[in-house]
């Protein structure tokens, strides 16, 4: 693997992960959550020239409802979801549960934390996690 292809990593919470020793690096809540059940948003992670792009599906959340927090090396997403039906409507069929979205990721040191940017459009959050300068390839001139 050439140095410029050296991957930077975002560790994703995995159901099969066996490390129960991880401290509940609890995503901090400013206010008590409405519901104790959080939905895990589906995500894609792909590599671009500048770093990693993380896309998360957060349908039903609007821009103001999305909170992204970086604490130490843990990046947490939280998105409040607005109910699609008025209160009192009877549920006849339910394929998705109405809960807020939440998911956390562990960033490696190769992510330039100060330059992480986020865009939100049509219920999709797109986070750009730039590769830290020192993790980028640097050409070293050989003096003759």
């Amino acid at each position: 693997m050439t140095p410029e292809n050296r991957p930077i990593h975002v560790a994703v919470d995995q159901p099969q992960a066996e490390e129960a020793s991880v401290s509940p690096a609890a995503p901090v809540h400013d206010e008590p959550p409405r519901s104790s059940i959080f939905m895990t948003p589906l995500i894609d992670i792909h590599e671009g020239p500048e770093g990693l792009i993380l896309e998360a599906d957060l349908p039903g959340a609007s821009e103001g409802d999305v909170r992204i927090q970086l604490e130490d090396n843990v990046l947490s997403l939280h998105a409040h979801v607005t109910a699609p039906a008025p209160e009192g409507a009877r549920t006849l069929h339910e394929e998705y549960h109405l809960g807020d979205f939440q998911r956390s990721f562990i960033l490696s040191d190769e992510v330039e934390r100060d330059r992480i940017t986020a865009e939100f459009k049509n219920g999709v959050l797109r986070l750009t996690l730039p590769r830290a300068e020192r993790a980028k390839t640097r050409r070293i001139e050989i003096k003759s």
Partner: protein
Amino acid sequence: MSGMNWQDRRWDPFRDLQREVGRLFETLDPFQPWRLVRQFPAINLYDAGDRYLLSAQLPGMTAEDLDLSITGETLTMKGERKRTEGVPDENYRRQERQFGRWTRTVSLPDRVDGTQVTAAFAHGILTVTLPKAESARPRHISVTSMG
């Protein structure tokens, strides 16, 4: 296409440990096992008295990508969710989201007034409002007190 299609095929001995962050504590998703094999899009159907409300999770789509039609009690929804452009397959580290063409047909529990059906799309949620046909609406019968 299932949610299990992560493309973490490359073996990289130096990769960070993938760790579960408080998942057991913060996330309890009763639909998790089933969510991974569910149909796309996921829909909910509500009875709001004089109308049915159908909501569908369609993140990343726009109203122009959707095609809805109603015949009698059958609502058909079609669309295509396009993949993020310009990303070669080998650049994916993880892939959980579904893409491609989809069709879903929903049989409503009762007759609706097909001419009055409306649909709105916002924040990745399609909401279809289907007013019940006159004869299918709950009727209020007033009781007149005698004497």
